[in-house]
């Protein structure tokens, strides 16, 4: 992941700290925000290689944030991962129909290393 820029947007500070440590060890540059609105702002100004959004966040939800990103010329095709513990993957999938490279992960099923691995795979495939 050398030289890759990853934006993490999650209101769970500990999760952000732990995952960024792992991603930095892998050589990635990690940007962190804690609410949807700041996440969109940061994404549009920094143009990261991949964005990681939590779904339930203060100010703006991850889904809304992703919609805003997808409406932007640059953000239209940016790989994105949505992380949540809400038990509605089908509903989630329906709301993401327009965004091409978007993944949905159920947090509780993944370890931090597995998430990092997933990010690596997506970036390699890009």
């Amino acid at each position, binding site marked *: 992941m050398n030289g890759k820029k990853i934006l993490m947007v999650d209101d*769970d500070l*500990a*999760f952000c700290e*732990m995952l960024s*440590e*792992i991603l930095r060890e892998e050589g990635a540059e990690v940007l962190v925000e804690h609410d949807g609105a700041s996440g969109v702002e940061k994404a549009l100004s920094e143009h990261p290689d991949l964005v990681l959004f939590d779904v*339930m966040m203060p100010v703006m939800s991850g889904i809304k944030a992703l919609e805003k990103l997808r409406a932007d010329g640059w953000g239209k095709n940016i790989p994105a991962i949505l992380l*949540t*513990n*809400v*038990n*509605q993957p*089908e509903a989630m999938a329906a709301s993401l129909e327009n965004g091409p490279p978007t993944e949905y992960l*159920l*947090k*509780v099923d993944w*370890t*931090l*290393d597995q998430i990092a691995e997933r990010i690596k795979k997506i970036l390699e495939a890009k």
Partner: protein
Amino acid sequence: MVLLLCIFFAFSYFDSKYLLVATDAEYAKNTGRQLLELFLVVSIAAAIFLSLLIYSVLSTQNAARRMAYAISKDMSFSKEQFRRFYELSPVPYLLISPKGAITRPNKASLRFFGRTEENLIEKNFFSFLSLPEHSEKIMRYKDSAERRIPVVQKEVQVLLDSKELRWALLSIEDITTPGSYEHNCLVTLVDIHEQKELERIKTEFLSLASHQLRSPLANLKWYIDFLLNRRRDQMSEEVQGYLHKMYRRNSDMIELVNTLLNLSRIEMGRVKVEKESADMEALTKSVIEELEPTAQEKKISMETTFVGDLLLDTDIRLVRIILQNLLSNSLRYTKENGKVSIRLSGSTSQIRFEVEDTGVGIPPNEQGSIFSKLYRATNAKEIEANGNGIGLYMCKELVAGLGGTITFVSKLGEGTTFTFELPR
């Protein structure tokens, strides 16, 4: 009959009285008298016969009249009874013309709509129906009514006087009697609003609960995982051991939450079956591998037999849950040094999975309840206090969802074999 009998007796009487007389003169004189007497007797007999005939005709007429009266009384009674039943039934009924004009709403329907009779009569019933996203459906029901095709228990939203929308099950049935010129359809509305509301609240609660319950569990999992993988050198063996235990207990908790959420989804009919071709042997082996540590702990031997073509187009997530449940049950209720056998056999039409154990068995009088939700056999409760009584219920629902069947044979104290078959 009476007439014939009289004539017969009259002839016998005259024969005995006059035929023995010898002379011609006497014979001639007697014949006149004889005829006169015969005429008299025949007239009396005819009179009796006629009066009997008139009596019987009259009494038959009376009986018919009485019967007709009784029938008409009965009919008006049942008509009245039916009217009262229609009017006073707690279920909203409306009579409409095939075009939809309301002709006769019952009291319950007035209460349902919150309108007066004048306010409802002659209005078009279909104008009160609303299904924003399915207006086509309403048109279909309307069309069915017009063509006198029954509409059976369809979910609709009904617009009330208060502008509120209320969920109901709509049925429409043509009740026009043969030969009648007046065409009537009976509309039945069953109020299911509370049910629908509860469903909505339950769904919302579920998504909230799934988030709130899983988030701290996911955090714990990450913390422990992070410590064990990245801060290992800062911890003693003892601390690491405890962390491993915490990780396992937390995983149990995650599994329980997932089970509960899966169960709720099954009950709401929201589990989607996503089929793909998969090797059932490989799947079974991976489930066995997961449970191997538990088996080793209890020194239970696990034996497998795989026969025939075991490739199946199915939802492996669901088959995995079924196998996990059956196998972990077998391990839980089999004593140390016992045996669990797993047999898979594929035929052209299906694959049969058998899980046999040498466990405690299911008491015969409880075997009928074993697939019921939250039910736990009495001997199971004695062995393991923490079971949730969901596993087998979920297995049954999932097997049914995959179009298969599940059965078992069990002998108390000797063991149980669960068998499920999935069609190709």
